[in-house]
Structures are given as C-alpha cells and as structure tokens.
C-alpha cells in the first residue's frame, strides 16, 4: 500500500490567533474514494489549498507520493477548486491544448469525448458558457488527467441532481486501484454510497477517520446520520 498523501503536524494560523487547522495528521493510501466532511469553516478548503500549494502552512509537512510540494506533486495531483479558475477569455479547445501542454498525464481524447457527450461546444469561449457548463468543463479537464490523487472541492455543491449523478458516475468510472479521490462536501447523503472512507473535520481537527462500512456496522447508522450527531449545532 503506497502512502499517497502524508500530512504531519499541519497547522494554519491566521492573524488574531485564528487556527484554521491545528496539528493535523493524516495518511491516505491509494485506491480509495475518500470523503472530507465537515461544516463550513471546519478547515476542509484550507486543508485542500495547503496540499495544493495555494496557501502556505504555519507549521507541518506534506508529502505527496513521497515528494514535498513542487512540480512532481503537482503532476500527481488533479485539483478541482470550488470556483471558476480558468482563464475566461480562452476557448474550450484552447484549454484542452493548454492542459495537454503542461500535464504529461492529460488524456485529451478522453476530455474531448466527455465534452462531446455533454454537448459542450468546443469553440465556445469560457465566458459565454453558463455557470453549470463552466463547472462541467472544469470537471472534465480535471478528471481527464490520469493523476494519482484527485482532489475535488465541493464538486456537487450548486449542481442539479442529474448533473450530480453524472459527476458521481464520472468519479466512479475513473476509479483506479492506485489512485485516490478526495472529495470535500457537506452533501453527505448523496455521496455516501460512493465513498470508501470518511474523514470528519471539526474546527481544524480530524475527529474521525473510518470506512463507511465500519461506521454502518459498528454504529448501525449512516454516515449522514452520524455526521448530524457529531456536528449538531
């Protein structure tokens, strides 16, 4: 079992003694679909941004497939942020070429096929597309990479149920035994059947790291129900 992600003592402190993450330890192996669950403000996005070198840590180390953060870790990670991160003046087919130019593990044909299945006009400029379509383009580009670690930040958040199904199917069909998908969400019920493992993040601390089956057999309830218990207001 390879240690795909190894985080030790990860801390992120903002001014005014606000700890978004506090001494977090986490190891993820390959071949799992993992849910990063927690209410807003629990540190999910902070953790994700730190692993992707989009925030700098106050303390701690992160290793991706044995490498510290850098060009190798970025080649190994396919990251889907929770916002429009593409250059909106580019056309969809330009973006395909862009990804192909920079990422060795980008499968342009796969992306092309997915876009075609979704009926997205490849000549269109990003800024002319609707919000939902933009999100689909971003998802397609991310999932067309043959990465070792996929990190999806709230991929099913503002999306209609049909699109949600499509996204979950895409995640499942991308499944490979060495790759791991880390999905952060607060919509647990929709995604529970797809997860191997769940991580509960509460106020910057990891309060649970368990497989879905363990939770259901040991606690006799769904992850969704357990979540409500753990995080009740």
């Amino acid at each position: 079992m390879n240690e795909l992600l190894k985080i030790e003592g990860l801390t992120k402190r903002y001014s005014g003694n606000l700890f978004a993450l506090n001494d977090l330890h986490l190891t993820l192996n390959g071949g799992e679909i993992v849910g990063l669950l927690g209410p807003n403000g629990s540190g999910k996005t902070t953790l994700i941004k730190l692993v992707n070198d989009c925030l700098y840590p106050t303390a701690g180390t992160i290793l991706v497939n044995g490498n510290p953060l850098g060009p190798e870790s970025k080649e190994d990670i396919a990251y889907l942020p929770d916002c429009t991160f593409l250059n909106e003046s580019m056309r969809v087919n330009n973006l395909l070429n862009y990804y192909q130019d920079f990422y060795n593990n980008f499968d342009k044909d796969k992306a092309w096929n997915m876009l075609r299945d979704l009926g997205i006009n490849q000549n269109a400029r990003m800024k002319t597309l609707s919000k939902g379509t933009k999100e689909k383009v971003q998802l397609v580009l991310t999932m067309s990479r043959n990465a070792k670690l996929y990190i999806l930040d709230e991929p099913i958040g503002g999306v209609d149920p049909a699109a949600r199904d499509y996204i979950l199917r895409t995640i499942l069909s991308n499944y490979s035994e060495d790759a791991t998908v880390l999905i952060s969400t607060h919509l647990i019920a929709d995604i529970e059947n797809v997860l191997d493992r769940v991580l509960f993040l509460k106020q910057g601390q990891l309060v649970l790291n368990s497989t879905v089956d363990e939770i259901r057999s040991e606690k006799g309830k769904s992850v969704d129900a357990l979540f409500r218990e753990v995080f009740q207001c």
Partner: protein
Amino acid sequence: MPWDLDENRPIYLQLMERIEQDIVSGKYNPGDKLPSVRDLALEAGVNPNTMQKAMSELERDGLIHAKRTSGRFITEDENMIKELKRELAQEHIRAFIENMRQLGFDINEIPELITDAAKGGQSNE
C-alpha cells in the same frame, strides 16, 4: 440508475442481497458470467471496493466463483441456488408473519388472508 440502498445498513451486505436476488430470480442463470466489479459498481452507484467486498463474500459462500483471467461466474450448482431461494423466501415469510402478528392476526388466519388477497388480485386483472 443507482440501486436503491438503505442508508443504515452496511452497503456490501445490501449488494450481496441484491446479487443473490438476481441469481435466485433467474436474472443470472447458473454458469453465467457476471459483469466486472467496476461495471457493476458503476451500475449500482457504489464504490468499487465495496462491490469487491460483496463479491468476495459471495465467493466465500460459494455462490460465485472466479476463473483466474476470465472473471466471475455464477455457480452451476442448481441445488445451492434452490436452497438459497428457499432460504430467502423463508426470511420474507418470517418477516411477513411477524408483521401480521403485529397487526393482531393469529397465525391460523393467515392462509385465508393469503388466498383472499391472491383471488382479489386475479379478479382485478
């Protein structure tokens, strides 16, 4: 469409039940080849590891066996399948009897209720 799964029970158990049902009802014939774990997981809308676990359990029970490179096949032991069918039926019946008891029926009243319901169903067709 993803399979309809109860959220309080382990998923792999429910997957096993569904596959057993499919075997027993004839959707899969003895000796048939099962779809791959990935395809079945995709159809069910579940994690492939969970589907894998369900398959492994069914293998242990002898309902499925794996041929090294060709995939997984339903057993050709028709007796085993018949046994399973009976067992599953018994489970449903026991649950039914329990439900009737909770409604206040005596066990002797049940056969008549059944024949009435069956006739009523036929006259409605």
